[in-house]
C-alpha cells in the first residue's frame, strides 16, 4: 500500500471524455471523487472502481483507476469478490438509483452485513437516465414518466433508511450543489473502515424534475451538522432518515463509533491461522486416502 499525499485531483481524471448531458449532476460527482482521492493519496493503480449500468455507472471510465463497468445491478457482488481476493486495494463502487436499489437492491443488505471495506456511492436522480426517463425506485409517488403515463402508483423506497436498517457503519448524503461537502463525505466514507454508503442527490437535467435540479438543491439542502446531529446516534439517524424525499439533509447520518472488524480483515486472520495446517497443494488428494 502506497500513500502519496501529493497526487493532484487531475491525476485521477482519465482521457475518456464524459458523454453525460451538459449540466448532468454526475459531472460534479466525478469531480468530488477526484478531490477525495487526491486527499486520500493512494495512486490510481491501487484503486479499483466498479459500477453497474446507467449514465452514472459510466463514472469509472472517467477516472485513471482500474475500472469495471459491469452489468446492470451487479456492481456490489463483483466489488466484494474483488476486494476479498485483493484486500489491499481501495475499492469504490458506484451507480444509479435504479442500478443500486431496483435491480441491484437484493445485494445491498448482504454487502452491508458482510461489512467489507468498500465505499458505495449512489447517484440518486430519481429517474432512469440512460434508458430515457422511466420511473426509478426513488421517483416520487404520482410522477408521470414514459412508464407511468398517468402517474406512478407506488411509493418510493427510502435508500437511507434501508441502508441504515441493514446495519451500514457509515451513511451519508450530499449533492453536487455543495461540492466541498460532497467531496468531504466521499473522503470520509473512504476513510471509514468498513462498508460506507453515500447517497448523492445528483440531478438529471434531461429527465429529472425541477425540484431535483442543482438550483432547487441549493435552496433546500440543510446540513446535518448545522442541525446538531450526532452521527453516533443510530436511533436519531433512523428518525432523520425517515424524512428522505421531503427534507434534503446533507452530511453524515451515521458513523459507527466502534467499527467492528471488517470481513476482509477477518478473512485475512482466518487465512493466517489456518495456513499452518495446509498440506502442500500437490498432496491434497492424500486426504481421501483410506487406510
Amino acid at each position, binding site marked *: 500500500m502506497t500513500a502519496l499525499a501529493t497526487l493532484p485531483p487531475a491525476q485521477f481524471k482519465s482521457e*475518456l471524455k464524459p458523454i453525460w448531458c451538459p449540466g448532468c449532476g454526475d459531472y460534479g460527482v466525478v469531480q468530488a471523487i477526484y478531490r477525495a482521492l487526491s486527499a486520500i493519496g493512494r*495512486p*490510481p*493503480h*491501487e*484503486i*479499483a472502481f*466498479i459500477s453497474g*449500468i446507467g449514465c452514472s455507472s459510466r463514472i*469509472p*471510465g472517467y477516472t*485513471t*483507476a*482500474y*475500472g*469495471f*463497468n*459491469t*452489468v446492470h445491478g*451487479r456492481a*456490489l*457482488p*463483483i*466489488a*466484494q*469478490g*474483488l*476486494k*476479498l*481476493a*485483493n484486500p*489491499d*486495494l481501495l475499492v469504490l463502487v458506484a451507480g444509479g438509483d435504479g442500478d443500486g436499489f431496483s435491480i441491484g437492491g*437484493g*445485494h445491498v*443488505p*448482504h454487502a452491508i452485513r*458482510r461489512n467489507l471495506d468498500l465505499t458505495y456511492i449512489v447517484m440518486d436522480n430519481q429517474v432512469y437516465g440512460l434508458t430515457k426517463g422511466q420511473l426509478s425506485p426513488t421517483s416520487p409517488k404520482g410522477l408521470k414518466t414514459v412508464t407511468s403515463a398517468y402517474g406512478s402508483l407506488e411509493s418510493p423506497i427510502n435508500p437511507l433508511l434501508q441502508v441504515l436498517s441493514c446495519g451500514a457503519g457509515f451513511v451519508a448524503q450530499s449533492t453536487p450543489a455543495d461540492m466541498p461537502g460532497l467531496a468531504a463525505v466521499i473522503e470520509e466514507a473512504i476513510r471509514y473502515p468498513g462498508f460506507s454508503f453515500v447517497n448523492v442527490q445528483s440531478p438529471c437535467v434531461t429527465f429529472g424534475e425541477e425540484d431535483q435540479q442543482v438550483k432547487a438543491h441549493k435552496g433546500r439542502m440543510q446540513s446535518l451538522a448545522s442541525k446538531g446531529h450526532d452521527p453516533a446516534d443510530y436511533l436519531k439517524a433512523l428518525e432523520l432518515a425517515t424524512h428522505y424525499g421531503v427534507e434534503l439533509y446533507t452530511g453524515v447520518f451515521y458513523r459507527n463509533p466502534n467499527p467492528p472488524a471488517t470481513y476482509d480483515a477477518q*478473512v485475512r486472520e*482466518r*487465512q493466517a491461522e*489456518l*495456513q499452518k*495446517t*495446509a498440506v502442500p*497443494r*500437490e*498432496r*491434497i*488428494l492424500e*486426504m*481421501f*486416502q*483410506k*487406510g
Partner: protein
Amino acid sequence: MRDIVIGMAGSGGDGIVSAGESLIAAAASLGFHAMMTKSFGPQIRGGESSCRVRLSTRELHSSGGALGVAIALNWEDFLKFGSELRCDDATVVIYEAKTGVLPEHIPLGNIKPREIMAVPLAELTKQSAGTEKAKNSLVLGLLSGWLGLSQDTLRKGIQRRYGKKGEEIVNGNLRAFEAGRQYADAHPSQTPLRLDAPAAATTKILTDGNDITAAAAIFAGCQFFGGYPITPSSEVMQFLGKEIWKYGGAVLQAEDEIAGIGTAVGASFGGKKAMTATSGPGMSLKTEILGLATIAELPLVVVNVQRGGPSTGLPTKPEQSDLYQACFSAHGDVLRPVLAPTSVADSFHCTVDAFNIAERYQTPVIILSDQEIAQRKETCDPIDTSKLVVEDRKRPTPEQLEKYTRFAASPDGISPISHPGMKGGAYLAAGIEHTESGAPSASGAVHARMNDKRFNKLLPLESWSGAVTVAGDAGADLALIAWGSIGGVALEVLDLAQAEGLRLKVLVPRLLYPVPKEVYRSFLRNVNSGLVVEQSHQGQLYKILRMELDLPKGLVSYCRSGANPIQPSEVLAKLKALSADARRSLS
C-alpha cells in the same frame, strides 16, 4: 466373483447408507475397486433411504446394472426406489424376516430371484447389541461373511465410525457385526458370492465427484469461490469452505447465484483464479454474468452439477439435460468451452483442465458434471500430480505495461491481462463492446473484430489432446458415443461387447464444446452405424454433433429422461440390432 452390486434400502433410521459407507471404505482400503451411490426419499429426515455398492477386482466405470445382492429392511421402502434397485433372476434377495412376507410372496412382480433369504435382522441386532440401532453393523457382518470380506478391516471401520460416540456404542456395533458374521457362516448362500482378492492390494483414494472437484480447484491454484447452496452441488462449496483458507483463498456464501458468480468474476478481475458451482436453476441465473466474463475476457470456472429438469425438476436425480444450456444459454454470439468429467477421478483432471483452459484463453469454462458422478463415492488410483501442468494467465511484461492495451490484437488472439494493483496496467473492463484499449464502442467494424478475436482464440482447443477418450476396436464400423456418467456406461458396454466378440469402438468426449471436429471425423471415418447415448429426453449431444459434423446415417441417438438408469445391457442389445440392420442394408 470379480464384480458384485449390493443394493440396500430401509427407513432413514435404519442406517443403510452408513452400512454402505463402511463397506466401501473397507473395500477401498483392501484395494478393491468400488463405487457407491445413495438415493433418498423427499423427506429431509425419516424417509426412505437406499444405497448401491459395487465392488470389483477390476476398474469400474459405472455403478452397475441389476443387483447381485438386494437387502430390503422393509419392502415398502425398497420398492420406492424402483429401477434404481433393479433385481433380476441372478439376484440374491435378503430381507427382514419380521416383515412376515413369505419368500414365495416377495413383491418383485415377475422377477424370480436366484435365491431368497428372510433374515431376522432386527431380532438378531436386538439380541446381540441390545438395540436395533446397530442394524447396519449386523448387515455388514452378514456381507462380510457371504462376500468373504476381511473382518478386521470392517471391525476397524466400525471402531473409527463410532469411536466418538463412546465405548458402549462401539461394542454394541461390534457385537452386532459378529452376530451377522455368525449368521452368515451358519447360513451360507447357495449362490457363490465370495469376492476374489483384488489384483493389487494398494489402498485407493475414496471420494466423490464434488469433493474431488473442490480439491482439484485448490490444486489448480483457485483462490476464490463464491456460490450459493443447491443440491447436488453444495458439497463443492462446503469442501472449499473447510480447506481453501489454508491456501490463502476465501469462500463467500453469496445471497444468490448471481452474486455467487459476480463475486467470482470480481476476484478474477482482481487477478486471482476463481470458481463458482451450482446446478441447473442456478446456472439459469448465472447466464447474464457468464456473458460478462466472455466479453471482458476474464478466466472463470463454473461447475454445473446437473440434476433432472426443467425448473426445480428432480433435484436429487441425475440427468444430462443441461448441455444445450451450457453451450448456448448466452445472449449474443458466445463461444464458451464446456467440459464433462466421466468419473470421480476424471473430475479431478477435468477441473484442472478447466482452470488451465480458462486461464490460457481468458474465458469462462463450464464443467458439466452430473448428480451421479458428483455424489457417488468411488475408488480411484492415486494420481501423480507432479505430472500435471498448472497454467496461469498471460500477464503483461514491464515493457507492455509502459503503454498497456488490454485487448491488444495478437496472433493467437490472447492479450496479456493486468489486474488492479499492477502499475501501468489500469484499464476499463466492461460488458459493453469495446476497442482494443477497452473504450466503449458501438461500431460494427470494432464489434466484428472483437467477435473474431473472442472466437478465434479458442480454435486451438479443438485439437486439444484431452478432448476425448477413445477405446475399443479402432477398425470397427460400429460406434458408441456417450458423455459424463453415461460415458462410464459406454465403457462397460465395450467390455460386454468384447466379451461377446462384437467389434465396437467408443468415444467419450471430455470437451463437449466447441466440438473437436477433426477428432470426431477421424473416429467416424469408417463408421457405418452406432449410438450416441444420453440421459436426457432430447439427446442434446447428438443434435450438437449434427450442427458441426456430417454424421454417418447409421449413427443415431439413444436417450431417455433422467432418473431412469441406462443399463449397459440394453445399450448392447440396441447396438447389436443396429449392426445387424446395417449389415442387412449393405448386403
